[in-house]
């Protein structure tokens, strides 16, 4: 209190506002410099060197060599990890969004026990990724996992071997990832809740049935939220790590080697190739930025904003 009055008296009201502003925002300014500005510049620099943590003094400037090495075809694992990640992201987003939307629409029918069901669908998405990964690794165990036990019980003599086959491992990870659809479902439910009853009443007077209302009112009004979920879902799925890392590592024949898993192996394992990994991280940023841009361009055509825009 004394400090406050002192500052005000000493330097006048307006300048004291300025001092207070910079004082209060100081922690974030320092944080921004140390944890954003510094690492951005440093990693950009690193991406043009062959820096490793084990021999930092021998690092040389190598120009675009790190970036070029990914595209030269000398690094087949790079393309494989990119392909795996894209396939995973596409299927994960498609299934998760459709599933979350369908369940949200189901629950939107004023069912009894709506809150209980909401809880049941939401809780799995809160589980620690490690726990649900280990759990599913076991469920899909080819010999004594629950899934194949059930399949044998219903008469399938040679059920798929899921995570142990290069053909099915990636798909199995997608199936597992859909289990965490609850968060997106909640967002859809909030969106559905905010659609005004009056639209439906007006449509009913015009004799619209359930499907007409769904396609002419609900989905158009929900489209910004669908778009948001798809965008955030894609950005998240492109950075998938824990699921693949715990459940299958890089999988049989590297069939579940994801982009960030490869980046992790590069940067944080001997000999800690920070330079190359930084280049990989920046490429990921460019890929994400590019996809985001495409999404926004496409969305202009399909996303409907109630207030007319932006």
């Amino acid at each position, binding site marked *: 209190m004394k400090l406050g009055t002192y500052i005000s008296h000493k330097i006048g009201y307006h300048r004291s506002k300025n001092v207070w502003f910079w004082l209060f925002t100081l*922690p974030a300014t320092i944080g921004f410099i140390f944890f954003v500005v510094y690492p951005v510049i440093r990693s950009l620099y690193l991406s043009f060197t062959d820096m490793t943590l084990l021999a930092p003094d021998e690092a040389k400037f190598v120009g675009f060599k790190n970036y070029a090495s990914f595209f030269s075809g000398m690094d087949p694992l790079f393309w494989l990890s990119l392909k795996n990640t894209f396939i995973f992201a596409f299927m994960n987003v498609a299934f998760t969004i459709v599933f979350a939307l369908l369940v949200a629409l189901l629950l939107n029918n004023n069912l009894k026990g709506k809150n209980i069901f909401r809880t049941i669908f939401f809780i799995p998405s809160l589980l620690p990724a490690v726990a649900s990964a280990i759990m599913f690794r076991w469920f899909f165990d080819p010999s004594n996992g629950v899934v194949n036990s059930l399949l044998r019980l219903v008469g399938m003599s040679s059920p798929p071997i899921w995570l142990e086959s290069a053909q099915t491992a990636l798909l199995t990870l997608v199936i597992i990832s859909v289990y965490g659809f609850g968060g997106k479902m909640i967002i859809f439910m909030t969106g559905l809740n905010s659609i005004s009853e009056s639209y439906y009443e007006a449509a009913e007077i015009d004799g619209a049935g359930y499907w007409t209302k769904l396609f002419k009112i609900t989905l158009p009004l929900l489209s910004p939220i669908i778009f948001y979920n798809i965008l955030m879902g894609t950005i998240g799925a492109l950075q998938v790590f824990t699921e693949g890392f715990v459940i299958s590592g890089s999988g049989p024949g590297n069939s579940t080697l994801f982009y960030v898993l490869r980046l992790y192996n590069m940067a944080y394992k001997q000999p800690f190739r920070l330079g190359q990994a930084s280049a990989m991280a920046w490429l990921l940023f460019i890929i994400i930025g590019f996809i985001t841009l495409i999404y926004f361009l496409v969305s202009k055509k399909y996303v409907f904003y109630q207030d007319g825009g932006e």
Partner: protein
Amino acid sequence: MTYVENKHMKNSNYYLKKRLTLGTLYFLIIILGISMLLPLIILISTSLKSYEEMLMFPTTLLPKNITFEAFITVFRDNPFFRYLGNTAIITLFTVIGSVFTSAFVAYGFVRFKVRGAKLLFGLFISGMLIPGQILIIPMFELYNRMGWINSFLPFIIPPLFGGGIFNIFLQRQFMRGISREVFESAEIDGASELSIFIKIALPMNKPVLITIAIFTFLNSWNDLFGPLIYLDDPELWTLAKGTYMIYQNAIGELGATGGTILPWNILSAANVLVSIPIIILYFFAQKHFMEGVKLTGSKES
């Protein structure tokens, strides 16, 4: 409205039809609900089985003889309480740091409209676009040079500086809703800025504080990536990393002994132990979880 109802009344099949669709809806939702719950039920049930019973085929949904053997083994063979303690320390510091510093900074932005404030805020927001993978590599290098690897410092120091840009954004959004007169009248009464922040802004921002606390807790509790790269020393492992290592060691042992089946009952027990605090938290703060999902979009990524 009455017109609509009358029209429906005329249709004698209407109520039958409606009941049928409702029946289908309940059927669908219950089937879905069961399939969502089933993995959790099997997880808990397996954790209560003995190794022998776990091996039996066909598997039973519920254990015939409930035994806590798996839980006892988890605690006997692993310093699980240490993992819990480490996780608690990291989580506690991260949550407190994030919640209060982000409120502190947000107060600065809301209360003092000075020149450059918008620019600074825009700069902060642009920082959110940079993916973590880019930022972590130089920080890993720096922490390594500073001797912070194998300490909790990489976890608890950064949140003290701003508490996360997104959290500042949330706090600011909510704090803007507080009438300026509230602050101004406190100022006229001679309250200092610090006491206006502590006695007025903080309490009024309570809903956001709780939401941020919950989601910071979740992220910190579930984090595997951080402990994987910063914590090699087993003394410092968190629950997430500890559980992962229990699983890795079980696979290693299996390779060494030439066995084929992992001790899933023990792994399930570890999974149950890691997950329980989160489930309990959910039931205590359900409302805030929902608010949080709405505000933050989604938990993961």
